[in-house]
C-alpha cells in the first residue's frame, strides 16, 4: 500500500517544487519590491555593521555635552543625558528589528499550528477554537498589550511574547480558512483514501499550500509589531533603558519638540518610517507573487 502511494506523492511534491524559481522571479521582477529589499538591507547593515565601523558607545553619557546639536564630534547630536544619538540609533535598530521579526515569527508559528489543527479537526473542536479567537479579536489589542506590559515589567524577551499574544489571532484565522478549502480538495481526499496519516497530510499537502498566505500576513505583522512597540514606548510601557530602541528614542525625542531639538525626533522617526515602508513593500511583493500563482 505505502509502496504504491509513493510515486503519486512524489509527483505532487514535484509540482510544488517547480513553482519556486517562478515565484522568486515574480517577486524580484517588481521595482518597488527591490526597493523594499534594499531599504531593509540598508537598515540591517546600519544596525549590525554600523557599530563595528562607528565605534562609539551608545550607553556612555557625555555629561559635558548634553542636548548638543549635530557637530563633528556627534554627527546626530546628543540627547538630554548626553547619549550619542547616532550610536544609539545603530544599536537601537538591533532591538527594534529583533523584537519585530521575533514577534512575527512566534505569532506565525503559533497561529499556523492553531489554524491548521482547528481546520483539520473540524466539528465542535473547530467551533470552540475559532470562538476563542473571535473573543480575543473583539478586545482591542492595545488593551491586552498595555495590560500585559503593566502587570509584567517588560524586557526584550517578554515584549516579543506580549506582541505575539495578539498577532497570532489573524494568522490562525487565515490558516484555518485555507485549511478548510484544501481539506476538501480531491488530492487530499485521495491521500486520505490511500491511508496517509493526518499529520503527514498536514505537513506535506496543507503546509506547502498555506505557507504563502502565512508569509504575507507575517511580513505585515513585523511592521505592526515595530509600530506597536513604539506606541507602547510612548505610553511609558516600552522596553526599559539602557538598551535603546527606535520607538523609545522617538517617543523620548517628542518631549523636546518645542525646544526644536529636531535631531532627537527625525532620525529615529526616519528609521521607523524606512523600516515600515520597506517591510510593507516586501509584503506587497510577496502577495503579488503569490496571487499571480493562484490566478
Amino acid at each position: 500500500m505505502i509502496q504504491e502511494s509513493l510515486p503519486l506523492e512524489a509527483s505532487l511534491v514535484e509540482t510544488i517544487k517547480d513553482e519556486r524559481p517562478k515565484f522568486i522571479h515574480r517577486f524580484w521582477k517588481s521595482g518597488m519590491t527591490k526597493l523594499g529589499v534594499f531599504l531593509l538591507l540598508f537598515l540591517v547593515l546600519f544596525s549590525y555593521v554600523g557599530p563595528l565601523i562607528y565605534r562609539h558607545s551608545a550607553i556612555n553619557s557625555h555629561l559635558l555635552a548634553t542636548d548638543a546639536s549635530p557637530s563633528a564630534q556627534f554627527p546626530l547630536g546628543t540627547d538630554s543625558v548626553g547619549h550619542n544619538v547616532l550610536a544609539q540609533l545603530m544599536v537601537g535598530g538591533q532591538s527594534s528589528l529583533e523584537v519585530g521579526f521575533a514577534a512575527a515569527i512566534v505569532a506565525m508559528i503559533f497561529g499556523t499550528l492553531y489554524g491548521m489543527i482547528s481546520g483539520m479537526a473540524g466539528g465542535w473542536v473547530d467551533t470552540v477554537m475559532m470562538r476563542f479567537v473571535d473573543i480575543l479579536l473583539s478586545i482591542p489589542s492595545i488593551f491586552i498589550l498595555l495590560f500585559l506590559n503593566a502587570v509584567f515589567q517588560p524586557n526584550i524577551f517578554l515584549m516579543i511574547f506580549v506582541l505575539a499574544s495578539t498577532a497570532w489571532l489573524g494568522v490562525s484565522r487565515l490558516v484555518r480558512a485555507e485549511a478548510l478549502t484544501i481539506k476538501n480538495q480531491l488530492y487530499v481526499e485521495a491521500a486520505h483514501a490511500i491511508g496517509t496519516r493526518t499529520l503527514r497530510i498536514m505537513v506535506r499537502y496543507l503546509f506547502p499550500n498555506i505557507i504563502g498566505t502565512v508569509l504575507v500576513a507575517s511580513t505585515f505583522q513585523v511592521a505592526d509589531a515595530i509600530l506597536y512597540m513604539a506606541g507602547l514606548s510612548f505610553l511609558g510601557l516600552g522596553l526599559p533603558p539602557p538598551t535603546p530602541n527606535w520607538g523609545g528614542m522617538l517617543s523620548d525625542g517628542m518631549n523636546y519638540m518645542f525646544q526644536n531639538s529636531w535631531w532627537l525626533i527625525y532620525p529615529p522617526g526616519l528609521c521607523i518610517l524606512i523600516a515600515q515602508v520597506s517591510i510593507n513593500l516586501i509584503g506587497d511583493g510577496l502577495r503579488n507573487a503569490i496571487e499571480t500563482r493562484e490566478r
Partner: protein
Amino acid sequence: MVSYIIRRIFGALIVLLGVSIITFLLAYAVPADPARAIVGPHAPEYLVLQIRKQLGLDEPLPIQYIHYLGNILRGNLGTSYVLNQSVTSLIGQRIGATGLLAGLAFVFELIIGIPIGILTALRDRKLTDHVLSTGALIGISLPVFFVGLELMYWVGFRLGWLPIGGTGGILFAILPALTYAITGAAYYARLLKSSMIDVLNQDYIRTAKAKGASPLRVVMRHALRNALIPALTYAGTDVAALLGGVVVIEDIFGYSGVGQLAFQAIGNLDVPLIMGTVLFATVFVVIFNLIVDILYGIVDPRISYS
C-alpha cells in the same frame, strides 16, 4: 435572513460571555491585592481582611464570577478603587467625547481614503497612482503619536488654527480625529483600489460606457456602489483598531474620553475600571460587527445566508 440574524446575535452573546470570563481571569492575573491597594500600604492587616470581605474577594473564584456577571447584567460595573466612583457613571461621563472623536475619525478616514482609492484605481500604474500610493504608505508607516504631536505642533502651535489639546466640543476633536485618519485611511484606499479595478473590468461597466454614460457617472453611480462593499466589511475590523487607537490618541492630546480612562485604569491596576472599559469597548466592537454583517446582506443581495 431572520434565522441568520438570530444565529449571529447568539454568536455575539457567546463572544461577550467569553470576553467577560477573560477580563475576569485577567483581573486575577494582577499581582496586586485590590484590598491592599484601597487601604494603602501601611494599613493594619485586619482592615485589609475587612475590605476583602466587603468586596467579596474572599469567596471562591466561580462564585465571584457569578456575582460579577449578575452585576453586569443589572448594569452595575462596580466602583473604581482609585477614583471611588461607579464605573458606569465614569464611562457615562466620557462616552460622548469619545463617541465624537471616534465618529469624526471614521468620517475623516473615509474622506481621505475613498477619493485616494478611486483616483489610484482610475490612474492605475500612472504617476497619480504612484504619488498617492506612496503618500498612503507613508501614512500607515508613521507611529500614531508622531503624527499626533507633529499636527499638534504645526497646526495647533505654529499656525494656531486649532486647540493643541484638551476636551470640549468638536474643535478639540478635529486634530485627534485627523491623527487617526492619517494613519488609517490607507487601508480603505487600498481595499477600494483593488475592488474598484475589479469592478471597472466587469461587463456592466462596459455596457454603461457603451450607452454613453459620462465617465464621472460610470465611476460614481455604477462602479463605486459595488466597489464600496469590501470597504464596508473592513469597517467591521477597523472599529476594534479605532477604539484601540483612541486610547493612544486621547493620551497624546489630553482628551478626556473613555480611552484615557482605560489607560489610567491600567496604569493604576484599578481592576473594576479596567474590566468596565474593556467590556465597554468589546460590546461596542461586537455590536458594530453585527450591524456590519446585517448591512452587508442588505447592501449586496448576492450574499446568501446558508
